[in-house]
């Protein structure tokens, strides 16, 4: 096994992630007051827990180095990127653009994540879902969002 395949081992990777997250939590806890054992401050337990997390992370990492759990399988980026992009569109555009255009755009972007989705049905689906969201969530459940937002001349 060469160096690279060891680095892509599932245990080595996850161990490193856990240890790294633990270090981040420890660093964050440093800024908090520890208090005493009798009267624990806000930093006491986080510090304790994050140190234990680092220990577990290192244990997983070492186990990976010694035994190996097999390399991580390829991460197909297409679906991941499309879905995350769609969510970010929602997060950053609903207030400005309104619900209907946002949902329309986000469905089109999500469809790009699938190899099997075809353009025309995707557009129909996007329109249908945008309409459904308007009826169900704004009219029905009273979600405080505008149908068409200020960016597009709505209110």
């Amino acid at each position, binding site marked *: 096994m060469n160096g690279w395949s060891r680095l892509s081992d*599932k*245990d080595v990777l*996850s161990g490193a*992630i*856990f240890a790294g997250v*633990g270090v981040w*939590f420890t660093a*964050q*806890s440093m800024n*908090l*007051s520890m208090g005493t*054992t*009798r*009267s*624990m401050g*806000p*930093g006491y*337990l*986080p510090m304790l*827990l*994050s140190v234990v*997390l680092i220990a*577990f*992370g290192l*244990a*997983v990492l070492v*186990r990976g180095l010694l035994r190996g*759990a097999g390399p*991580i399988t390829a*991460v*197909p980026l*297409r*679906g*991941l990127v499309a*879905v*995350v992009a*769609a*969510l*970010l569109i*929602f*997060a*950053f555009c*609903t*207030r400005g653009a309104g619900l209907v255009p946002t*949902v329309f755009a*986000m*469905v089109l972007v*999500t*469809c790009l*994540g*699938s190899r*099997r989705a075809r353009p025309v049905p*995707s557009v129909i*689906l*996007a329109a249908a*879902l945008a309409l459904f*969201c308007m009826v169900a*969530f704004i009219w029905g*459940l009273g*979600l405080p969002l505008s149908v068409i937002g200020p960016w597009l001349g709505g209110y």
Partner: protein
Amino acid sequence: MTFDLLANLSVGFSAAFSLDNLFYCFAGVLLGTLIGVLPGIGTVATIAMLLPVTFGLPPVGALIMLSGIYYGAQYGGSTTAILINLPGESSSVVTAVDGYQMARNGRAGVALATAAIGSFFAGTVATLLLALFAPPLAAVALTFGPAEYTSLMALGLVASIALASGSLLKAFAMMFVGLLLGLGGQDIYTGAQRFTLGLVELIDGYEFIAIVMGMFGIAEVIRNLEDESSRSVLSTKIRNLFPSRADLREMAAPVVRGTALGSILGILPGGGAMLSSFASYALEKKVSRQPETFGKGALAGVAGPESANNAGAQTSFIPMLTLGIPSNPVMALMIGALIIQGITPGPNVVTEQPVLFWGLIVSMWLGNLMLVVLNLPLVGIWVKLLSVPYHYLFPAIVVFCAVGVFSVNNASFDVTLMAIFAVVGYVLVKLDCEPAPLLLGFVVGPMLEENIRRAMLVSRGDPMIFVERPISAVLLVLAAAAIIAVALPAIRKGREQAFKEA
């Protein structure tokens, strides 16, 4: 005692049979089945997606609807498992084995009916158990001090990890990440901000729903997009929905055994539906006179696990309602829902919210009844739903998750948070790290910290309080025993075996 039970149940009946609650129960079961039957959406994702729908309801109605969603989702998952061999959730993995074979032999209707009948019987028995045992358990829990509570939570967390599948070390690491994330936000005692990165949006802590939907809902979608090979839906028309007399005789014993097994395993932390169904399948195979039929469409292989997973789903409410401790991700969601409704989960719920508690119990039984009444005639519609291709389904899931998470606090930030946790959850699953312990840790984290801090105040900073108090000591010994037991090579092998059996 019996009189009490009857009086309490009548409180429950009058609550559950109010027109509103009947409707919520019905709507829950229907919606749960509707979403749960869609391939690739598990129970947790279904409940998380539908959780925002219940926010506007009164607490009793919300909880009744959520539990209806839970059974519905579970039954929907079984339907998917039987008809297209695609279990939407871990607890119906074993159902898929023999159920799908039955379907291929033209007995899909019988398999579906068996699942429904078994679930109903198991649900009825488990609901009775819940009514009988929850109040005394809550009475015991009321005497618990902070030390006992701390140890109980430690036991709950450890046991739920010990009984789950996969690597112990990773599960522990995931649990600690969850505990730490759960502590995020403003500290209740000092007002200090923890892990907020200076963001105003995180002062109230990391939004639970955003994390659940990200890690269970969206991450699942991304995973399904990896492999888009088409799934074959059985095109044969479903006929002979009703099992013959011979079928009924054949399923009776497995249903009873599955119910018993599921009821016991459901109470255990980490048990719940999944472990119950696996254990029941193994048991049925062992006691069967024709073990060679298993995997080729054995009726017992559907009847046992389906009863067991429903019984387990039901009895896992016992620790949640009486102790306020989640034993699995679904119960973690229920606790989240209670907290959103302004109810502190714990032993006080039984005495302080009798209408909620007993109403929920009665409506559980009612929900199970509705499941049977609703599903047998509607099977045709569910089958139609199954044929919706995934590439037109998942954009809808993504949209509903986004709107759902947004609606919790009307906060766009939570949608971003969900996207982040979706990536985190996806990567972790790729690395064989189960997301469930993280979720349990997240829910238990704040409660655990509060009790530890109180215990240390009581003991004036002496950690010996946890071992000097007898109940607390016993709980900790049990927790230690659970870890040691799972770490032992012999038992470890058995544990892996149990999960591989199917």
